[in-house]
């Protein structure tokens, strides 16, 4: 009898020991659990002896994991710490797909960053829940932001305050396969510039096999990728339509015929013109990259992969084809300060943000990561505007739109749903469009009602 309890007891003890062992590990670890950036910066502070005289302020910075971003931020932190002895920045990253879960788990536990990198479309929610504090106006005066940064940055201005500030932005442009252009007898150096040309070109670039199955798509077309952005922030405005009312409460897509016109134009690629198919080579990016789609509307963030993968064809970029007006979609990740931060930490966080928005950092951000500078004076330099690949993205920046999302994932799903209704359920584009406006308006009503 006793012996059997002994067994159980011993096991229980082992488990407890494991627990305690684990505990003591944390004690040692938690202070030093940083990424490479910090360990190297340790050297930086130790030779800047001045660190000894004042308290060392440590702030924590969060962003999602993307190799080149992590590398650059690590370098920047090192430089920042050298220039500001007494401030240490702890840099933490998570895989993009689990960013939300991580935030969700840590915030209720009272852990979390002092400076956080957020997609601009998520900012309203973070502001509403009181997670962020407004950027101090003495360090980031509004007139300065508004005169120096591109107007899209206003998407993160809520309740008269700026809550986050970006280093870099991205825009959509037309990617095209020069080899396929040449093959179809089109001039590889004069990409389509208007809506009509885009259709003409894509028809010329489409190939079908004997069974009338798509072999080469003139246009890649994927609403779930950049497609919904193309419609919402580019096509709609190009046709002369409007996005949101000034108070951001009303969806104005259907206030002019332009909205429906844009929606139909967009849907005509897979339907009327038959130059595109959803799910063709699994998605638009793969179809373009493998040379099965001749053109694609995609973001500046794709340049890096296309350069790395070096597909065996020549490609180029061009501003989005336009109708009556110019427009493109833009989006950005931006840094904000969380609400509990105050005193010396707040000063440090502000300094860090100011550092991340200097002209020099913006230029390096473009060189290393390929995202476009958020300030006009930096982006619109001749060396960038004339760049053979970045040029197309840069020149569109002044008229780029960043939709004010109240719920990024749901708004995206609604556009996809509208497309599905037309393509799969034979609903008329008019009806689907009307539903889309209605449902999106509901999300906005809901958002404003809860504020």
């Amino acid at each position: 009898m006793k012996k059997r309890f002994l067994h159980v007891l011993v096991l229980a003890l082992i488990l407890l020991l494991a627990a305690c062992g684990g505990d003591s590990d944390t004690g040692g670890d938690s202070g030093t659990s940083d990424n490479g950036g910090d360990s190297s910066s340790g050297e930086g502070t130790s030779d800047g002896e001045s660190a000894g005289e004042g308290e060392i302020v440590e702030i924590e910075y969060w962003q999602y994991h993307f190799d080149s971003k992590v590398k650059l931020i690590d370098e920047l932190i090192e430089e920042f710490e050298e220039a500001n002895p007494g401030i240490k920045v702890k840099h933490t990253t998570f895989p993009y797909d689990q960013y939300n879960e991580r935030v969700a788990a840590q915030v209720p536990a009272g852990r979390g960053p002092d400076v956080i990198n957020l997609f601009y479309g998520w900012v309203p929610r973070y502001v509403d829940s009181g997670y962020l504090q407004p950027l101090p106006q003495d360090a980031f005066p509004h007139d300065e932001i508004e005169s120096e940064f591109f107007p899209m940055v206003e998407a993160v201005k809520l309740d008269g305050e700026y809550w986050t500030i970006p280093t870099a932005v991205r825009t959509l442009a037309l990617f095209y396969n020069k080899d396929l252009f040449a093959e179809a007898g089109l001039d590889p150096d004069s990409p389509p510039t208007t809506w009509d040309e885009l259709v003409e070109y894509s028809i010329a670039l489409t190939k079908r096999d004997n069974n009338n199955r798509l072999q080469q798509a003139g246009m890649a077309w994927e609403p779930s990728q950049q497609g919904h952005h193309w419609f919402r922030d580019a096509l709609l405005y190009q046709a002369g339509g409007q996005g949101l009312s000034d108070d951001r409460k009303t969806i104005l897509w259907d206030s002019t015929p332009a909205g429906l016109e844009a929606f139909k134009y967009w849907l005509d690629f897979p339907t009327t013109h038959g130059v595109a198919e959803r799910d063709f080579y699994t998605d638009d990016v793969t179809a373009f990259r493998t040379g099965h789609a001749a053109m694609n509307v995609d973001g500046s963030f794709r340049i890096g992969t296309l350069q790395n993968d070096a597909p065996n064809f020549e490609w180029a970029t061009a501003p989005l084809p336009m109708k009556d007006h110019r427009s493109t979609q833009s989006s950005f990740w931006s840094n904000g300060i969380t609400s509990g931060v105050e005193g010396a930490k707040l000063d440090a966080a502000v300094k860090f943000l100011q550092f991340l928005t200097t002209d020099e950092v913006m230029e390096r951000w473009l060189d290393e990561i390929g995202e476009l500078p958020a300030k006009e004076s930096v982006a619109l330099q001749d060396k960038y505007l004339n760049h053979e690949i970045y040029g197309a993205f840069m020149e569109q920046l002044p008229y780029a739109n960043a939709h004010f999302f109240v719920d990024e994932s749901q708004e995206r799903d609604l556009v996809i749903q509208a497309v599905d209704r037309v393509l799969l359920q034979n609903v008329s584009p008019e009806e689907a469009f009307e539903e889309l406006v209605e449902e999106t308006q509901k999300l906005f009503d809901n958002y404003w009602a809860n504020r």
Partner: protein
Amino acid sequence: MSKQMKSTIAYTLLILGSVIMIFPFVWMVSTSLKTALDVYTLSIFPENPTFGNYLRIFQDTLFGKWFINSIIIAVVTTLSVAFFDTLVGYIIAKFKFIGKTIIFIAILSTLMVPTEMLIIPWYLMSSQFGWVDNYWGLLFPGLMTGFGVFLMKQFMEGIPDDLLDAARVDGLGEFKIFWKIAIPQVWPAISALCIFTFLSNWNAFLWPLIVLESAEIFTLPVGLSFFASGEFESQWELIMAGATITALPLILVFFLLQRHIIKGITLTGLK
């Protein structure tokens, strides 16, 4: 039908099935041997086979550490689950006591809440007790499972009561009866339990990702998840190499353990 013919049919069916079972795996391995450029050529035999993706994983990550961490976690939880779940399953199957049904249903009901929804309270606990970023935090949720208790209960019920009573008559202590009489009877089920527990802990992703902070203590799936996917796209050749590396030890573990899905000692002296 002759015995010969029956076994020929069995083999034919099994071989046909094998093709379907193994094909995606083969594709995965083949993609892991391709260069980024060849990923989309979709041929089963890579044109320019390369170990470059594996080399990148070995060189650019803390692969060795993650591998060892994964082994530690999987082995410790498997031992704990095998012991406790078997014991609890045995007790529920073979004893009558107050609260038995409720305890069983309650334990089983723990399987009915998605892990995603337990992350926040678990993290709150971990943060309070200092379990964040260490082994204990990593493995505490998996030390016992409703799955194992249920599996072992079902198999323990198959043991004839007479066998256990006979042992009691012989003066064996209760724990000895469990250890010496009951366990050998359900050896196949215990082996199966070990396989599944090892596997699910080896592959565990979401909770480890949330509770771990330092790269040194990452498990393999967590570490590799940082590696190949981003906001907009995935590097499939690297993902496939990572998936292959993660799967190979499991295949080995299964290969070694599957032999034990055969009764250890034939103790059917009864009847």
